[in-house]
């Protein structure tokens, strides 16, 4: 009997819940496999998908979003071996799953912590509530490949934003595997879009895109490039999360900063006693 030939996997982009190849048809080799090399038109398509997903995702109840994210964690748990097989240390996989669950728990609590009933001098209920910003562009950190990606994606989507993530050029395989996890959870298509390739090429298009509401530059290591992206982002006054000033301990308690960075506060005056 002849020897069985293994089926090789093609690592593709994740846009709108589907796995298309790059519009440009380009790919680049990573760890002896070919990975799609996204172009500016893939950025455009991803932003379109993310925009289309905003209404449904931000309109879902916080409880529902939390449940969907817990489901993602369940799926992650089932794929532990696959991540380890890609070279992600076991301790990192565990931390990434725990991080995801931790953020999932915040879905229906963040409004209680950051919302407020404000005392005002008048016959009004005055309420402030945090609301999602909309479409967030993310330049993901290269290291640690999985934990870093989870640590920037989970806090952004848990509050109702949708994201277009530019995965680091050197670490696309765990990202595409994470996309497979997301696709098999109940996460609506378009809430997370992952583009593999060279952020140096695609990030300026994402930063300048007028239909993107915020930009997370965590994965940008060159200060000059970060400044250039920030200038492009000013075109429509995007909220920008600057790159960290020094080395980040990704295993430490992340705090709430990454969630609140992409929230905006809505204050409502409601007449009472009339």
């Amino acid at each position, binding site marked *: 009997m002849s020897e069985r030939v293994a089926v090789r996997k093609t690592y593709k982009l994740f846009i709108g819940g589907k796995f298309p190849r790059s519009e440009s048809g380009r790919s680049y080799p990573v760890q002896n496999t070919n990975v799609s090399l996204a172009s500016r038109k893939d*950025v455009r398509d991803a*932003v379109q998908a993310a925009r289309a997903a905003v209404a449904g995702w931000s309109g879902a109840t916080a409880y529902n979003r939390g449940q969907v994210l817990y489901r993602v964690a369940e799926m992650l748990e089932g794929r532990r071996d696959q991540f380890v097989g890609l070279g992600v240390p076991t301790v990192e996989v565990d931390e990434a799953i725990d991080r995801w669950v931790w953020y999932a728990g915040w879905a229906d609590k963040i409004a209680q912590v950051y919302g407020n009933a404000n005392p005002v001098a008048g016959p009004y209920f005055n309420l402030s509530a945090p609301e999602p910003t909309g479409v967030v562009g993310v330049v993901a950190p290269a290291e640690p490949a999985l934990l870093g990606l989870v640590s920037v994606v989970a806090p952004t989507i848990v509050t109702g934003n949708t994201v277009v993530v530019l995965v680091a050029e050197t670490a696309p395989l765990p990202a595409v595997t994470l996309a497979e996890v997301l696709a098999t959870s109940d996460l609506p298509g378009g809430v997370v879009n992952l583009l593999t390739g060279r952020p140096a090429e695609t990030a300026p298009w994402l930063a300048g*895109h*007028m239909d993107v509401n915020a930009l997370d530059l965590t994965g940008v290591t060159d200060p000059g490039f970060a400044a250039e992206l920030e200038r492009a982002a000013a075109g429509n006054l995007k909220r920008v999360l600057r790159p960290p000033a020094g080395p980040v301990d990704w295993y430490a308690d992340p705090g709430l900063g990454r969630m609140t960075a992409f929230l905006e506060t809505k204050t409502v005056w409601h007449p009472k006693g009339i």
Partner: protein
Amino acid sequence: MLARMTATAASARSDLTEVARSEATLRSFLHGLPGVDQVGAEQRAAMLATRSIKTTAKAWAIDLAIRMVDLTTLEGADTPGKVRALAAKARRPDPADPSCPAVAAVCVYPRLVPVAAEALRGSGIHLASVATAFPSGQAPLEVRLADTRAAVAAGADEIDMVINRGAFLAGRYLEVFEEIVAVKAACGDAHLKVILETGELVTYDNVRRASWLAMLAGADFIKTSTGKVPVAATLPVTLVMLEAVRDFRDATGRQVGVKPAGGIRTAKDAIRYLVLVNETAGEDWLHPDRFRFGASSLLNDLLMQRTRLRTGVYSGPDYFTLD
């Protein structure tokens, strides 16, 4: 196929005025038109759709497409306010950019023609109105003619009529022909666009016959669809209609326009149609007097693409009107 087509057209040149003399002559003429090669038409349309139009050519095509738009609102919920807003958009589609051309026409229901006429006065933008019991056309002829006269009297200079598909599909071609002639007479000086509603004609052969029938009866434009049935304008259907207007001009010397309507939503789609026009009917049809797009959401996508070319960054729907 084209050679046969031209041969038919040439032999028809002498007796085209006579073809509508009776039901029998009209039928034999329409059924004598060569059949459409369905696979060939679809393949050619698909092949032309792969043409890549970039940079300066794209900028030119987008501006031309904007000038060809019949900005349309045909909803039961249309209000005078909405029509005024649409007219303002027709005059200056992109308020942020004075170099953006105006659209070709605004298309509304007859009851809203006076509002639109007031809002468009002095702009040079045409005012089209659907008449003849749009979209079904299932009303007595007298009612449809009165509908047409009312729209023209209220200020419409283009009338979009629907053909009697029931009669056409039943093979009563002369009835359809005479109805178009009657509506054309009711139009007076207004241009007549004849809607074939290709989604209900089923076959390309029927589309070709209906195109010739409408042109013989005096149509200034032939239009694919009302936009109210599931299948609207497609590239192959438009290809068949473009061949018909080309052959009709060869046969009679009269140039008839084509208007695909319904389902054209993106600038990319619009550019594909322009390629089809250029390759099928020729450059003479690349003009708003000869080719139009019946559309509403298409304009915003054209404006977004135009802004993208001008500013170098991708634009978004937030920066254009909701209509």
